[in-house]
């Protein structure tokens, strides 16, 4: 909680010396009572910084996450699937906006966060750097990626920071539709042709390990987890959530009739949970470092949209300024007359 002491000291130099420790005690008591921290409350600088980083990364993930599936809206093979996918990708834009909104309650600025995303200084979930070569990928993303997101996000509905927790409640409600539509698409495809079944298994093989990596590095290798847990920003460790996801997914895979590509995956009677293999953590590091299959493409698309849209945003701001000036001129005329 000593993070950012220079800035805090600079800002608060004229206060009385006991104030910070009293504020810290109040903050700790609020967290201890499981109450929410709200935007205007005092909070330790490290808490604010951790939240902004986590919420921004989450928002960026929603926005970049529109791309891999969005490519299939124009090619979806039935009008019903087209409408579902269109609505789903739209939801993701909405989720990104809810989250940027939560980040802005902490003093972050969306234009600045976008700048950080396109300059590569802030990351998004590495899962979205994998390609989507077939329509089955739409189903598997819904099932695995949205399923993993739900495991991560349901506990965040009780995050200690109020605006973040409230955004997550809204998001989780919609994510449940996302997972269901993905699984339902796969069920339908598995009842279809041989070629469709092969497409589903191929997509499962490609997405399983990257999905397990969505929960982040193992607990022993996750330096920020402890602080986030203490502040109740985060409620479960990476490994706990990963285990939860595996236990949830295995019976669904059986029902679907696909094989999860892990020879070590089996039920452990003694633990009452599944044992499973270790993801290739060096791959995760590579993808995070920017060497995933689609990193450049994803950021380039976001950058292009932002830059191509600049003249539109400027025009709207210019029109608003002109309108305000006109209204003011009318008021003056009225006053003069």
């Amino acid at each position, binding site marked *: 909680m000593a993070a950012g002491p220079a800035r805090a000291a600079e800002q608060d130099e004229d206060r009385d010396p006991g104030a910070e420790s009293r504020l810290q005690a109040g903050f700790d008591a609020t967290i201890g009572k499981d109450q929410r921290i709200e935007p205007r409350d005092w909070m330790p600088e490290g808490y604010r910084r951790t939240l902004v980083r986590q919420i921004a990364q989450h928002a960026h993930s929603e926005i970049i996450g529109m791309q891999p599936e969005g490519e299939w809206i124009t090619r979806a*093979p039935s*009008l*019903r699937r087209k409408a579902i996918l*269109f609505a789903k990708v739209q939801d993701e*834009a909405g989720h990104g906006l809810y989250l940027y909104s939560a980040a802005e309650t902490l003093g972050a600025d969306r234009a600045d966060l976008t700048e950080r995303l396109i300059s590569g200084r802030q990351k998004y979930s590495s899962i979205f750097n994998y390609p989507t070569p077939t329509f089955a990928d739409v189903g598997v993303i819904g099932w695995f990626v949205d399923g993993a997101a739900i495991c991560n996000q349901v506990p965040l509905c009780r995050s200690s920071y109020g605006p973040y927790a409230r955004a997550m409640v809204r998001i989780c409600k919609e994510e449940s539709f996302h997972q269901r539509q993905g699984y339902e698409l796969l069920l339908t495809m598995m009842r279809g042709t041989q070629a469709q079944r092969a497409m589903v298994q191929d997509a499962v093989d490609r997405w399983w390990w990257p999905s397990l990596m969505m929960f982040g590095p193992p607990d022993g290798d996750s330096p920020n987890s402890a602080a986030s847990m203490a502040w109740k920003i985060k409620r479960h460790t990476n490994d706990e959530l990963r285990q939860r996801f595996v236990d949830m997914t295995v019976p669904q895979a059986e029902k679907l009739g696909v094989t999860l590509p892990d020879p070590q995956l089996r039920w452990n009677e003694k633990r009452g949970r599944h044992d499973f293999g270790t993801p290739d953590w060096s791959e995760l590091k590579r993808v995070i470092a920017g060497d995933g299959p689609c990193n450049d493409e994803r950021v380039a698309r976001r950058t292009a949209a932002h830059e191509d849209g600049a003249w539109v945003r*400027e025009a709207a701001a*210019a029109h608003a300024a002109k309108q305000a000036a006109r209204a003011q001129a009318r008021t003056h005329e009225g006053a003069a007359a």
Partner: protein
Amino acid sequence: MSSTEAADDDHVYLSLAEGHDDGDARWAFGTGFSDPLHGVDTAVPDAVDGSALAAVCLALGDDALVASQRLAEWCTRAPELEEEVALANIGLDLLGQARMLYARCGQVDGTDRREDAYAYFRAPADFRNVALVELPNGDFALSIARLLILSTWRLALLSRLAGTSDPVLAAIAAKAVPELTYHRQYAADWVVRLGDGTEESHRRMRAALRELAPYVEELLTATGDTVPGILAAPDTGTEAVREETLGVLRQVLAAAGLDLPERPAAPYRGRGGEHTEHLAPLLEELQSVAREHPEATW
């Protein structure tokens, strides 16, 4: 507190697995949560010419599908995130309209085809949409100007079709009217912003109108191509739709410091299957997966 927390988590997990009553409706229309055709009698009234009705449904369905496809192309490319959501809403509305119109077409054209048969298994020459909707998106100014023209005309027409003697088409039109009213307002707001905003936005909007002007006449004529025999009161048809459309466009463009340039009409007749070179590639993409797996179910 922690035991309650665990229970909360479990509760949310469990609820994810439960069925949801609204099922597909949540997805199929993006906005409406009820079936607009619930309880509507699908028998064709004696006074209605089934083949003329089918032609109207097909034409309006094709306009909506192709326009929706172009809006979907904006996805992840919009000038601001809020506009992503808005453009997708409009695309979803039009897609919903296309689906209902195709379904009605299949009920009355004697073929008993489903919506996907119309969308995925017809050749470009069999599509009946106007050329305006198939033109490439261009920049945001062009897409917005197109949306204004299309939604102004479509609202003028469908608000009249809401009184037509086929109860199904009337119900489809009635559901579409508030949607199109919103589309027109959204587009009009943006046309004014871009027309008034900066030199660059004004120039782009002017160029967009110049490019689109030749396609307006086809749209206005297309009302007459399809509607007679459907409207309960034909005198409220073609001319009234033309007047309303041009009147609204003039009003919006004047507020934006713009006008619709006089230009010769483009030589296409989409209602007769005569399309621009842009429709075939659009459909090739739209139909690619469905045609690669003709035996598949999705």
